[in-house]
């Protein structure tokens, strides 16, 4: 496998905040065309991991690579799209129009390729069309709902021409309908562009709707609990039909996934979950 086909590569990454160890010897590769979900409890280190991936934090030891280049020295940001959590109220009140925000997100591309104002505008409208927000282009962002704002941010992430999409808890705070809409848009973009997608999430629905691989961050480690099963290009082949059921979930980790579902109060009525509940009641 050529290195450039691996979008994200963490090699023996350890990270400590002062003396508190957060991650230790984490290894993770996300290949082109693959969707990988990072799950884990609050404070487990998921966000730290995503901040290391985008080069905002430098690992205490080990290597974090984006397309084969160290994340902290990475320059080719046109290849990366990033959607963060629904921002706080103050950002929601920011005086920016939808068009302005998507247009400014072409920053990396504009640095590389000379683009006319017309071309920029066309690309902006195209990206807004992809997420169904063309009618809102002249709106100011404080007039958007949470779901609409996240779709605009997805347009910002897709406008560059990315090969990798990093979604950092993108649907936290959204209602079910908005979440499902968001996931379907990500799925479409993934299928159309053969994107590598790294999603940090709390939402089991995301795993059902998107995730081809599930990696749990716990006890300073990242452990794959539902694997590719069909090779890394499985998702690219299955596209929109790719869901968790079609994956090889490691047997010894099936319980973990269901436990995760239980903690998210979305509990699927699987035997494992039922067993866990029975066992809990017996102990109680």
């Amino acid at each position, binding site marked *: 496998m050529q290195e450039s086909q691996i979008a994200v590569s963490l090699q023996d990454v350890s990270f400590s905040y002062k003396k508190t160890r957060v991650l230790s010897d984490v290894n993770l590769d996300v290949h082109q065309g693959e969707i990988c979900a990072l799950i884990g409890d609050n404070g487990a280190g998921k966000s730290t991991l995503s901040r290391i991936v*985008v080069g*905002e934090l430098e690992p205490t030891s080990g290597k974090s690579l984006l397309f084969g280049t160290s994340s902290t020295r990475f*320059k080719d940001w046109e290849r990366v799209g990033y959607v*963060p959590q629904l921002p706080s109220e103050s950002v929601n009140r*920011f*005086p*920016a*129009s939808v068009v302005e925000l998507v247009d400014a997100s072409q920053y990396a591309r504009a640095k590389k390729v000379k683009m006319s104002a017309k071309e920029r505008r066309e690309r902006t409208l195209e990206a807004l069309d992809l997420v169904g927000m063309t009618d809102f282009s002249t709106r100011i962002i404080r007039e958007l709902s949470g779901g609409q704002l996240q779709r605009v941010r997805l347009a910002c992430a897709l406008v560059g021409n990315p090969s990798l999409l990093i979604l950092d808890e993108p649907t936290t705070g959204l209602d079910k309908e908005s979440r499902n809409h968001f996931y379907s848009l990500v799925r479409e973009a993934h299928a159309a562009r053969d994107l590598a997608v790294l999603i940090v999430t709390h939402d089991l629905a995301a795993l059902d709707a998107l995730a081809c691989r599930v990696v749990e961050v716990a006890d300073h480690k990242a452990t794959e609990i539902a694997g590719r099963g069909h090779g890394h290009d499985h998702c690219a082949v299955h596209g929109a039909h790719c869901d968790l059921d079609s994956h090889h979930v490691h047997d010894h980790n099936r319980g973990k996934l269901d436990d995760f579902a239980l903690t998210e109060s979305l509990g699927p009525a699987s035997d494992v979950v039922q067993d866990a509940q029975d066992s809990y009641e017996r102990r109680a």
Partner: protein
Amino acid sequence: MFEYVFMQRGILVGILLGAIIPLVGVTVVLKRLSMIGDALSHTSLAGVAGGMIAGINPVAGAIAACLGGALCVEGVRRHFKDQSELAVAIVMAAGIGLAGVLSGFVPNSSSFNSFMFGSILTVSEQEVQMIVVISVLAVAFCFFLRKELFLMSFDERHARCVGVPVSLINFGFVIAVALVVAVAARTVGSLIVSSMMVVPVACALQISRSWKQCCLYASTVGMLTSLGGLVVSYELGLKPGGTIVLLAVVTLLFIFLVKRVVLLLKTRTV
């Protein structure tokens, strides 16, 4: 009144600073660093006092102190990454403390006082030149780096992930603010400059529907209130710095009122 040279200079300086201070103020307010103007202007007072004691030009002292203060803000901000407002407050505390102590040693205290509330009508030709140069630099900075400033004010992580060199531009921006505050402290006053940085932006935020509009409106409100404030202060014999800021606050209240009335009328017609 326009035939007097001191009024001509005052009006030129008022218009320039009225446009520039809110222009950098937009980014300051939206990055939630509203106290940065306060912190740097108080630090500039320490520089003024230091300059007077050392017998050098107080404006040069103010510039040196503001640059030092700006470096400290960036340094402390990196240290307390999630509490950038605290960083600014710490620098302000140090600046005001130093200004307080040094003011006791200043030989000419009435001249020192003029730096607190400014003396826009007594600027020298040399100071006008300095203000013109720094205004041009600040406008150039805000114009050429408008995309970067916009993205960083919106969300620094997003800005980083589209390739903006966040640390470098943050640093450059704080230096630009420091220079603007240092020259403005002499003319509109150390205690007033931060109000000029915030109030016109608050006005613009009420009526703008994009970042571009916000910058334009903030500068326009700043310019008009500076001009209006100078005229009113001349006619009524008031202190110019204070009058300018009060006029900006009245403008903000007027915008609130008009918005309220428009909303009421809209709900009635619906």
